[in-house]
């Protein structure tokens, strides 16, 4: 993919990119950490489903419901293979990363954690991997300990080691920071957690679109991610869990599909994965996500990521040469996400002036307020690259930021 032609080829699959925004500027989409764009095949998969196969799944015994159920369950298998899960029943459909984590906290957490038990998170977690545990803590009295960040934007392994001495019951950690791009040494973190006897949950929301994830190789207990951040639709996400853990967990939400028998005298529950899938699922969402994963599977993902990192390095290196810019990201072990500030300026002003030039970046706390407070800022401007960004995007960003510097200067 260092071949720019291939990127232009990919770009053409994302029709949204070819548009004019504010002040007649072409769109430069660098907000991929918030959500990714969808290739034609994903949009087509959704459209085709509604135009040809739409029916409720599992419940019907007719031609359409059979087609819909097949496509839906095939999508589960696609996810299974994408993350190399042992079995499709370990793939639970959720609304997104946030719901996946809430499910683990409410079901596994409530069942297995008691007052005084320790949970380790990190200072760089997204609110989605903080607040569910805080809600659980308010109910159960578990204690949350954040692993500290070092000045070089990586986790403080010494601090982690010392926190592991508290014999935490759970280590829940992000694979990649959505705000500063750090790729955590997740395999090492998991191994250490296991040695300390902790269950492990990995927030893969930002990792999954950048590199291959193998849950068996990682040997994590739970892995979660969102469809919309990996070129799939909104409203669909995944919880992967080890079978033994999922089997033991009580259901969380109740309703159709997740039951075996219901009566007012007592109700029994369905097997995995259905036990955790109450109600009509986001059928079109699951099918769209599978289409996105199949789309990615066509490519050499390592090459795609190299390309993203190349763009990231280009901007990173330029930024570090600007006296007034402060970068919050490390150049290495970064998934092509970067936060920065112009010294003395408000991130919102920078975002507004970039937007005037068609550049879409995100400004604010990026749902990582504890991290912002560690960095000593209220917010930053964040750039996040994806497979369809090209050198022209990186260059347009730099030119636009030079203009911002001039306007503010």
């Amino acid at each position, binding site marked *: 993919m260092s071949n720019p032609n291939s990127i232009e080829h990919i770009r053409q699959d994302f029709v949204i990119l070819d548009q004019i925004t504010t002040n007649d500027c072409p769109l430069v989409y660098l907000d991929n950490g918030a959500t990714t764009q969808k290739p034609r095949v994903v949009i087509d998969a959704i459209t085709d489903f509604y135009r040809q196969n739409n029916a409720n799944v599992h419940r019907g015994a007719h031609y359409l419901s059979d087609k819909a159920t*097949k496509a839906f369950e095939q999508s589960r298998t696609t996810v299974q293979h994408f993350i190399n899960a042992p079995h499709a029943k370990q793939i639970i459909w959720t609304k997104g990363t946030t719901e996946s984590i809430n499910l683990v906290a409410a079901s596994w957490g409530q069942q297995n954690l008691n007052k005084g038990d320790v949970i380790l998170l990190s200072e760089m977690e997204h609110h989605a991997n903080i607040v569910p545990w805080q809600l659980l803590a308010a109910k159960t009295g578990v204690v949350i300990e954040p692993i500290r960040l070092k000045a070089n934007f990586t986790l403080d392994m010494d601090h982690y080691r010392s926190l592991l001495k508290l014999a935490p019951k759970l280590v829940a950690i992000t694979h990649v920071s959505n705000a500063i791009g750090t790729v955590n040494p997740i395999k090492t973190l998991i191994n250490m957690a296991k040695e300390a006897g902790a269950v492990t949950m990995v927030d893969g929301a930002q990792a999954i679109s950048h590199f291959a994830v193998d849950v068996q190789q990682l040997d994590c207990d739970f892995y979660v991610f969102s469809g919309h951040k990996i070129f799939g639709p909104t409203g669909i996400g995944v919880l992967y869990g080890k079978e033994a853990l999922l089997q033991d967990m009580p259901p969380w939400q109740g309703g159709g599909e997740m039951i075996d028998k219901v009566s007012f005298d007592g109700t029994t529950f369905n097997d995995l994965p259905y036990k955790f899938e109450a109600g009509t699922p986001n059928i079109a969402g699951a099918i769209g996500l599978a289409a996105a994963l199949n789309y990615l599977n066509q490519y050499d993902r390592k090459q795609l990521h190299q390309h993203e990192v190349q763009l990231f390095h280009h901007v990173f290196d330029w930024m570090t040469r600007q006296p007034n810019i402060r970068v919050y990201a490390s150049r290495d072990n970064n998934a092509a996400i970067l936060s920065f500030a112009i010294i003395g300026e408000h991130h919102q002003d920078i975002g507004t002036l970039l937007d005037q030039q068609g550049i879409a970046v995100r400004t604010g706390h990026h749902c990582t307020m504890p991290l912002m407070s560690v960095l000593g800022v209220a917010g930053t401007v964040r750039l996040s690259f994806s497979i369809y960004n090209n050198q022209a995007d990186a260059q347009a960003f730099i030119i636009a930021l030079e203009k911002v510097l001039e306007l503010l200067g």
Partner: protein
Amino acid sequence: MSIYTTFDQAITYNESEIKTLFANAKGWEGKYRQIMLLGKQLPALADEYKQDTHLVKGCESQVWLHFQIQDEKNRGYQFAADSDARIVKGLVIVILAAFNHKTAQQISDFDIEGYFAELDLLKHLSPSRSNGIHAIVQAIREI
């Protein structure tokens, strides 16, 4: 009636007889008439054998499945099954005609998809159908 009687009764058809029957059935109606005719010939399990523990999971209708090793030497299996749905009963005969008297190895080697395809009944085998035929085949294979 002992369950052993039932086992003896259940083995009336073999695979090739079934294929002949379906080859002669005309259109979907002919085929379903044939399935239901077969269903009528499935010996009923006595109520005492319709225990919940013998229910096959994943069927919308109720399907009870029993089996025994027929002969210690060849270790062939004998099956007895019943259902409250007529089409399932007929399809049970179709399935048992293929699996009865076979060893675990023979059962696992048997190309059930090919067999159902030849009978033009393949869609009944789909795991996404709630009729339970897939579940019955799975249950037999997992014995």
